[in-house]
């Protein structure tokens, strides 16, 4: 797949109320965009049924070049240190039109 360019996809699963914080965080670190969808689930902090705003999870995804991953993870670790519940996963993806993600 010579036309695919290697990038990293960072996925954050957390509460809906953190949406704006995450948007600010990735904008500040130079991501070209982000994608969000709502989810329900359960984890160490109990069930998130998705029925009330406070009870809804978001899956927040951002694709960035490797060079920007470190700063983003720093920001996410900082949120975690303050007590917010976040799950953070990083995966390898190959993207078409890498210039869109720079």
């Amino acid at each position, binding site marked *: 797949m010579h036309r695919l360019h290697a990038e990293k996809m960072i996925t954050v699963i957390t509460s809906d109320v953190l949406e704006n914080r995450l948007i600010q965080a990735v904008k500040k670190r130079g991501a070209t965009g982000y994608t969000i969808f*709502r989810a329900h689930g359960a984890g160490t902090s109990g069930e998130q049924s998705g029925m009330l705003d406070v009870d809804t999870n978001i899956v927040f995804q951002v694709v960035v070049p490797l060079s920007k991953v470190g700063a983003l993870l720093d920001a996410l670790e900082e949120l975690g240190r303050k007590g917010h519940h976040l799950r953070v996963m990083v995966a390898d993806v190959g993207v078409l039109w890498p210039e869109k993600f720079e």
Partner: protein
Amino acid sequence: MLSNLLIPAVLFFALGFLARVIKSDLRFPADLAKALSIYLLMAIGLHGGYELGKADLLTAMNSVMWALLLGFGMPLIGYTILVLSKKVDAMNAAAISAHYGSVSAGTFLTAVAYLDSLQIEYDSYPVIMLAVMESPAIVVGLLLAAWSRRRLAAQQGVSAAGTANGDDRGGSGQLTHILRDAFTNGSVVLLIGAMVIGAVAAPQSMVKIKPFIEEIFMGVLCLFLLEMGMEAARRIGEFRRVGAVLIVFGVAMPLLGGLIGVLVGHWVLGFGVGGTLLVAVLAASASYIAVPPAMRLAVPEANASLYLTLSLGITFPFNVVFGIPLYHALTNWVVGL
């Protein structure tokens, strides 16, 4: 209490609760409950604002002032009790007690349905109090949290500046931020906005909107309480995480609030039985719409599971099923004194 249990709103709450208990696969689409709660806030606001347009300004301002006092005072009482109980740390105490200074529109509306079914009249002022009481408790909660955070940090010898309020918020502008967040809270904006619209809109144009906010209101409330019954049952299932002392708090706090509310409603504000009961419910109920997201965002150190279980799983069902008729009996007694 029997007559309470013959009101559709309460019965639907019970039905939702039961559905979860028997593990039914009954389920609402995720956005329905959110949409119903937007409708309810809009309708209460419009209705309240419309009534207020016709109200006595002095009594209204007096009610607002006492609503503020209740909103600021209840969390302080709750915080003190919780800290003294030593069962939760200061951050959790701050977050939990904030919920009790605010109000539950669902409980308030169930009380209105209860009064309607008994054909008891009620003043319109408690609706303004409802709108006013959403925010102060958030402010107090955040201040208590900030204060506890600083104390904890001092104990541990580190600076708490900005610990929980993120990159963008230094210590200086923090109070402004807290106030801003509390007053731009979605439910507050919708409720107060609708109230203003109800008060200023031309009366002949309000006629057209009335069927929407009046005729289908009770039915929407029933649907909403059906869903909340399911949520309450889901939450009550987590009571083991909470522990006996906190459960006692979840029942004692509304009882205390109800008592204070009755005194304020009847003796201070001079309301009749209906209005007094509504003030009692305002003081007794705990928020599960506006306050939890605010706490989750700004007091991340607190355990969301604790305050949600208390507010939604303990205090809410207690108020809907037992509290309202109890506060009613209390009101009758105080009014009869």
